[in-house]
């Protein structure tokens, strides 16, 4: 085991996977010479050459569109979108082609590409460097979505995404790129898509979270010590979703609070709440409550903390469901 930051773990995954499979290549804006604006791809160009770690033109739809063609030529491209909100131009390709091309060929061709990006707020950044766009991706048929919360999962989920035969979008919590350190297995390390992680056991209430909201939920659980025993379920992958783990935890505690950084309406939390309403009604002792960002553009950074779900808001939600 090595102790790595979250972004170092991403970089480690790249070094291992590019070494393991000569068809894997990395492409994106500034990923080569600079090693990525967050250094997630540092050292790859020197080690594997400029043809497997490619500095592309500044063109997100062109990056993802040409990655579709690269797949047709037998490559497994991993595309970096420099920031969450800069990925929106590539949604055209994602929706019209990436999620549909395999289906369109009657399953004859696979499109094993990965789109990864730093996501989320709290980093005091200019506009459109702070979004949580997971719902757009989850809503796209043919595309899978993973969001790690720890350095170990950042490595393992990226490796799983690279090896998956289907297109996978991986969102990495940039807030914790360098602020979070953790034990990361050396060498090959794969965390299968669709397996949630019980980050903390509890018996009174389940906090369901993913990505940057997992450590927040854990802090909230800590601060509730003595008042309520909170379980924290880290989903790790939104599609495929580990429904079994979600329902098992809901059955165990009978109360669920969902924590999501993205705006509330039609966010992934709404999907989770709907699943619980359909399949766990009789296990629940209180309404499902969501703690989310608001239905507004992500705010100016001087007041961004007011937008972000906080320990206080999560604790408040837990008290509501406990008192119901």
């Amino acid at each position, binding site marked *: 085991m090595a102790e790595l930051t979250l972004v170092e773990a991403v970089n480690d995954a790249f070094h291992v996977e590019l070494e393991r499979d000569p068809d894997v290549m990395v492409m994106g804006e500034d990923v080569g010479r600079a090693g990525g604006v967050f250094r997630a791809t540092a050292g790859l160009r020197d080690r594997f050459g400029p043809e497997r770690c490619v500095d592309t033109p500044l063109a997100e739809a*062109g990056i993802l569109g*040409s990655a579709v*063609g690269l797949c047709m030529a037998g490559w497994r491209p991993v595309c970096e979108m420099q920031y969450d909100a800069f990925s929106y131009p590539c949604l055209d390709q994602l929706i*019209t082609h990436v999620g549909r091309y*395999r*289906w369109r*060929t*009657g399953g004859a061709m696979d499109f094993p590409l990965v789109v990864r990006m730093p996501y989320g707020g709290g980093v005091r950044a200019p506009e459109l460097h702070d979004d949580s766009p997971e719902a757009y991706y989850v809503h796209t048929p043919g595309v899978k979505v993973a969001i790690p919360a720890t350095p170990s999962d950042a490595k393992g989920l990226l490796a799983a995404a690279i090896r998956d035969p289907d297109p996978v979008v991986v969102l990495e919590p940039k807030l914790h790129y360098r602020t979070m350190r953790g034990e990361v297995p050396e060498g090959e390390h794969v965390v299968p898509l669709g397996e949630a992680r019980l980050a903390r056991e509890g018996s009174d209430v389940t906090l369901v979270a993913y990505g940057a909201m997992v450590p927040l939920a854990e802090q909230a659980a800590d601060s509730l010590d003595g008042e309520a025993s909170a379980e924290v379920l880290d989903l790790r992958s939104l599609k495929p979703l580990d429904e079994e783990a979600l329902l098992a935890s809901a059955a165990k505690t009978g109360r669920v609070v969902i924590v999501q950084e993205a705006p509330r309406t039609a966010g992934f939390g709404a999907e989770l709440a709907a699943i619980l309403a359909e399949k766990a009604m009789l296990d629940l002792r209180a309404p499902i409550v969501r703690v989310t960002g608001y239905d507004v553009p992500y705010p100016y950074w001087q007041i961004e903390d007011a937008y972000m779900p906080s320990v206080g808001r999560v604790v408040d939600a837990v008290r509501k469901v406990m008192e119901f």
Partner: protein
Amino acid sequence: MAVLPAERDLRRVIGDGESIPDGEVEGLSDNDLLELHRWLVLLRTYDERSVVYHRQGRIGTYAIFWNHEAMQAGSVYALEREDWIFPSYRESAIGLLRGMPASTVLSWWRGHPAGWWNPLEWNVASICVPIGTHVPHAAGLAWGKKLRGESTCAIAYFGDGATSEGSFHEGANFAAVMRAPLVLFCNNNQWAISTPLSAQTAAETLADKAVGYGMPGVRVDGCDVLAVFEATREAVARARAGEGPTFIEAVTYRTAPHATADDPSAYIDAARVEEEKRRECLGRYESYLRRAGLLSDEAAEAVRAQAADLMREGIAAAEAEPPADLGLVFEHAYAAPPPSLSEDLTELRRILGG
């Protein structure tokens, strides 16, 4: 290498039988010339029969390509079998030129899964519906083949309207930067449904866009199958020599509705359409062959009859396809589908089977 501004004049090989003399394309045998004729007739027949099949309710909405056949046949004839074709819906039947059964393409227009072909079988990508979005795919494939050390080229077909799309720009730029062996083939039929070229661009020619990408821009008469062939052959040779992409603007005129669902009477100049129909590509090529003493009435009739047979067999085979099982709704989107899809199928069968 300096990239020059695009050519002004349209390249032509076929004359008018009067003041403009016929030219010749080096390297094309009489057999090649007659094979090109068969290809043109095959596409023409496919197109004309498809409009009839649509009116008879045997296929769905259909994008007509009448008077685009020379652009498709001439360019594909300049490719090797290994080269990849990226068609838009206007080139839906281009796979026929590689032996794809007519029933496959007819099934596509019938909305039947038998029409969803395997691109690896023909090196013909799936039909791209959203305008211009396949240009980056073609750039990526060409680049990816080059990275593998293969000599494969790609050609992407799109219309004049597509040159306004961001994905055209991004794909063209990508291909140029990566020196990808790609031919960007623009069939400029001067209309995007009801929008004329003058409302699409302020550029004098579409080929002018090429210089901005650092690639040659070539203009050909899109109704001249030999000029199209020659220009594409040059572009493919450049691509294979590692010199990167070429933009070909083939100029024709859309003499048919955009698609069977379109009524152009509201926006098009009927007199101009009639004038353009007199210049249409198959008739011009047949006149050329007759002047060269290569085509008799009997031979032309035999080629038409062969194509008509192929279409009769094609529609019969497409109509004989068994109805698709509804289970296909849930298949093929994922190699490893999420478990929820199989639950949905079970539920649907229970309700419908009820």
